């Protein structure tokens, strides 16, 4: 049977589900189909590495929108179905259930997949990754008191999993190839706070270290590390980044450049096809049109709102600063903007151990801010800094550094 959707959306994650609903709210009256491979109703990914694993009760996904929501919005939601091929000439998609679906306009929100690591001597299915609820459930089950967990990769996902595994009573070793954890994510001063907290919780670190080989004997893994350690592990989990899901787009001849290349209206090289979220590489106006591909929950939420308006024919300006957060133990870390655009760093103490770092370009613009502290202690100042970044402001560094001065005064001069 063949179906036709005036708008088809590939991917029913944060971007796909929200943009389909946003199109309806914006008044789009035509048919909408939403195609999602996961058998569950669309759900939020951030809790999967944290509360979903550590909750006392049986975990439940945090649903973005239910079947009833899609039915009420007259969205044809195909759950557990993948798009297998895209024929741009005929404007149709071939689905994994054998069906063919025609489209008028298409949104590709295919997301990203965890990068995998082949370890010589270890069967690939013994190496966990985390992207979906099923994988999070497997980790929840694997993280048990007394078990030894090897976390490969000292990035956000790896460290959140280390924190969750400790909370479940497992022993944790983190193996990082670079000379410190969070090298790509945050400045050294913040990474050292994170590392100290993990060490206090009993996590063991191997930095500047790679895995040479491994073997599995009687259900236990032995990893030979480049620092000479033979690490025993009951569980191996890898968090070494993600790769954009561009296969379908690439096979269909769309322009690819670290993701699906889109313009500032989220349009691909085919004017009837849009892309947004983790899979899309877009130009950012705050950074002179520098191309970015973000793997961020908040960017996904905001991309969804913007791409829906762009698909309605509105001219959009997506200038939200990239924004990330991570929860580890009682600590919350937040980053807004692009730290590598900065030349100098200004430190702002916020009370207790909490601090914010403002990253300034040579011309005085604040281009990024990063901060860490327990609970929500860093949130307000970081949000204010984020607004300054979005507006390309040049705040006075002396006021920025003064904990007695409110950042609001920089944003809204009285």
């Amino acid at each position, binding site marked *: 049977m063949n179906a036709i959707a005036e708008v088809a959306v590939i991917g029913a994650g944060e971007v796909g589900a929200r943009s389909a609903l946003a199109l309806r709210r914006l008044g789009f009256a035509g048919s909408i189909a939403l195609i999602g491979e996961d058998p569950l109703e669309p759900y939020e990914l951030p809790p999967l590495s944290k509360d979903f694993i550590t909750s006392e009760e049986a975990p439940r996904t945090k649903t973005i929108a239910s079947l009833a929501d899609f039915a009420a919005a007259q969205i044809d939601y195909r759950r557990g179905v993948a798009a297998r091929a895209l024929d741009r000439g005929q404007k149709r998609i071939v689905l994994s259930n054998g069906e063919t679906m025609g489209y008028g306009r298409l949104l590709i929100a295919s997301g990203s997949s965890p990068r995998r690591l082949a370890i010589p001597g270890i069967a690939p299915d013994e190496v966990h990754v985390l992207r979906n609820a099923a994988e999070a459930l497997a980790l929840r089950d694997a993280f048990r008191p007394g078990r030894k967990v090897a976390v490969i990769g000292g990035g956000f996902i790896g460290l959140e999993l280390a924190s969750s595994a400790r909370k479940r009573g497992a022993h944790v070793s983190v193996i990082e190839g670079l000379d410190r954890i969070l090298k790509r994510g945050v400045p050294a001063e913040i990474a050292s706070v994170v590392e100290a907290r993990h060490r206090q919780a009993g996590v063991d670190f191997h930095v500047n270290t790679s895995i040479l080989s491994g073997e599995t004997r009687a259900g236990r893994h032995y990893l030979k590390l480049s620092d000479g350690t033979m690490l025993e592990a009951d569980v191996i989990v890898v968090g070494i980044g993600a790769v954009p899901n561009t296969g379908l787009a690439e096979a269909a001849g769309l322009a690819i450049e670290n993701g699906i290349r889109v313009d500032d209206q989220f349009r691909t090289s085919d004017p009837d096809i849009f892309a947004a979220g983790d899979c899309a590489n877009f130009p950012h106006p705050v950074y002179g049109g520098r191309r970015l591909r973000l793997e961020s929950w908040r960017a996904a939420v905001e991309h969804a*709102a913007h791409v829906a308006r762009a698909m309605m024919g509105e001219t959009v300006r997506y200038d939200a600063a990239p924004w990330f957060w991570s929860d580890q133990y009682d600590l919350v870390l937040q980053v807004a903007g692009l730290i590598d655009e900065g030349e100098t760093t200004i430190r702002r103490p916020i009370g207790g151990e909490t601090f914010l770092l403002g990253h300034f370009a040579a011309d005085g613009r604040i281009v990024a801010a990063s901060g860490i502290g327990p*609970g929500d202690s860093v*949130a*307000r100042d970081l*949000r204010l800094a984020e607004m300054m970044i979005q507006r390309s402001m040049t705040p006075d560094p002396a006021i920025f550094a003064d904990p007695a001065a409110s950042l609001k005064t920089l944003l809204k001069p009285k």
Partner: protein
Amino acid sequence: MSGWVDACAADEIETEDLIRFDHGGRSFCIYRSPEDTFHATDGLCTHEKIHLSGGLVMDDVVECPKHNGRFNYKTGAALGAPVCVNLATYPVKVEGGRVLIQIG
């Protein structure tokens, strides 16, 4: 309907800011707007039950410190994703320098 509860002194809240007020096992936020009016809402975000008291108040808007869900604290209106459920609001009056809220 009664149920007026003394929440705090008016001068405990800075202009364009909020404080958390817990009462009867529930958590509320009390706001002082830039126009110097007082308002009260539920204390937890309708998205993930995060305490809004750690969030930023700008003009008429309070923003969740965790996931940036935004609400108009005067009306309780949710202002877009990720929040879609409005925040409950409560009547407020100021008497003798004290802020009272009416919890139904």
